[in-house]
């Protein structure tokens, strides 16, 4: 529809009018008018393409090229010596075989799933609770709502470092609190105990992601019509029923997209873990991202790193069709001014 509408002359009234007015001699004039129209249309098309040119160039260079190159790398036998060259000898599936047989890689993949599932569950529950809280008109809620987004604005590496400070064995605020209020008698080794370290990065990541969930769910709750809530109240629905049967179904599209984006953010997490645990102790907090960094930039096995990257990319792109589906209104939308 969009392209056909734009075609000059296709139902363009100028031609018809001039043809009737000037009768049979109008052949030539009609022709020139059509050309004039065509150049205006062409000029606009050209302007549109020129406006897009920097973005297209950027996407090709900064996204398309690295993604394609990453696929190439994953099939190459790389070594520190090959970094200066654009290609390295073909390796077949050797890099992928390595990843699937490497115990650290497989546990990193499992950790990524656990970390993502745990983060999303925690972020959603706390984020939704806070979003509901902020819909109540209580004193100080405006200030509260603006301060709650702070974790989202800090550099991620800084957050990692702060949590490392807070979770220190000796002199860490978390242990100090647990001892001061009598929950623990000895400091807990949050960062060096392999069983606890994954929980530590999970807690830090939940802290980090809650504001995002709160803000999105809060704005969705604001859009629920008051009449709907009142009608449910009149029908005698209790608070829990109103939430479950009325409010949640209405805001479901936002919940879906929030989870989707939360998933995408969480499988990418890197800075936080590097700052907090560096993937340790004994690879207990190694995620796909941190292990891929280790393979490529510390062991200089770029081919193996690239193979792991591709697994991550596939994992992240699993939700791409769903994302496109949920964004379809925005995709279809067009309000061409250059009609």
């Amino acid at each position, binding site marked *: 529809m969009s392209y056909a509408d734009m075609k000059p002359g296709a139902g363009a009234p100028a031609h018809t009018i001039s043809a009737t007015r000037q009768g049979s001699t109008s052949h030539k004039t009609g022709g020139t008018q059509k050309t004039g129209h065509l150049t205006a249309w062409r000029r*606009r098309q050209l302007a549109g393409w020129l*406006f897009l040119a920097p973005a297209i160039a950027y996407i090709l260079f*900064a996204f398309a090229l690295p993604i394609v190159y990453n696929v190439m790398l994953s099939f190459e036998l790389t070594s520190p010596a090959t970094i200066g060259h654009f290609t390295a000898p073909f390796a077949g599936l050797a890099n992928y075989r390595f990843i699937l047989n490497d115990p650290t890689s497989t546990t990193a993949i499992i950790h990524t799933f656990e970390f993502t599932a745990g983060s999303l569950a925690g972020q959603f529950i706390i984020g939704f609770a806070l979003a509901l809280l902020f819909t109540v008109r209580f004193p100080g809620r405006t200030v509260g709502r603006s301060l709650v987004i702070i974790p989202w604005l800090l550099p991620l590496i800084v957050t990692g470092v702060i949590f490392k400070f807070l979770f220190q064995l000796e002199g860490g605020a978390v242990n100090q609190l647990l001892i001061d209020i009598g929950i623990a008698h000895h400091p807990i080794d949050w960062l060096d105990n392999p069983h606890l370290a994954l929980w530590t990065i999970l807690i830090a990541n939940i802290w980090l992601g809650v504001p995002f969930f709160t803000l999105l769910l809060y704005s969705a709750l604001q859009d629920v019509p008051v009449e709907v809530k009142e009608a449910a109240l009149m029908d005698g629905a209790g608070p829990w029923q109103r939430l479950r049967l009325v409010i949640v179904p209405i805001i479901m599209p936002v919940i879906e997209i929030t989870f989707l984006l939360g998933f995408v953010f969480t499988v990418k997490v890197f800075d936080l873990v590097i700052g907090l645990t560096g993937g340790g102790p004994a690879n207990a907090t190694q995620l796909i991202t941190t292990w891929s960094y280790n393979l490529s930039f510390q062991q200089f096995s770029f081919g193996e790193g690239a193979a792991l990257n591709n697994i991550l990319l596939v994992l992240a792109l699993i939700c791409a069709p769903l994302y496109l589906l949920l964004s379809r209104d925005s995709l279809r939308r067009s309000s061409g001014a*250059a009609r």
Partner: protein
Amino acid sequence: MTRLDSSRSLRWLCTLAAALALVVVLFPVYAVIVGSFESTQTLFSGTFYWLPHAATLANYSTVIQAQSGHVLTSLIVALGTAALALIVAVPAAYALSKYRLRVTVVLVSSLLICQIVPSIVLATSLFIVFHWTHLVNSYPGLIIADGTYAIPFAILVLRAFFFSLPNEVMQAARVDGASEWQTFYRIVVPLARSAVITVAVFAFLNGWGDFIFALTILSGSGIEPITLGIYTYLGNYSTDWGAVMASAAFAMVPAGVMLVLAQRYIASGLTAGSVVG
């Protein structure tokens, strides 16, 4: 009467719950500030003091000497990222919302997918591609890489904003004889000021907070942003926590400034980018 009382006490209960949540949200930031004023002895005493204990400015004087160059580097990178994001995104978003081009659906879909691509995937390849194109260890290289956070988001947010501009505005400019570029530059951009600021703020914060590209693309060069500076401090076995916390305090400044100055832009950008995106 009772109902009023109960609703009033409910409200105060909500205030209390919100205050508790805010304590958890803000405590890490508070701990940075406390830690940055503590002496090395206090920090290694094995006790965390809830209020500054024997406060000192020693950490700040250490850090100002060691990190001011890194802060400057971060500022250059952040401003560069914001500039690149605006140059690429504003015209593109305009074209994608106000021109009927055959490429629109394809391009918007690929932008949505670009947002999904993890940075480590890009970093691994960009490191080698940049080697090849001599962009390793350079500001342009780092700024191009940092743009991958900001640009897809910026185009999608601005595009959503441009839809709200009535087409008549542009038609009027054209009738007055303005060229396509003049219409864009003189009419559309000024009208989109608030959305442009939102996008610039986010791009600045992305460039400022970037760690992964700095870590991978700047391998042992003179260029070192503050995020990398903090990480280098951590590297030692006995971390100088006072210096780390003072550097962290510096690294948090832009977020604080943005929160105060650009509050409404941040909130609107967050929701617009995610829901419309």
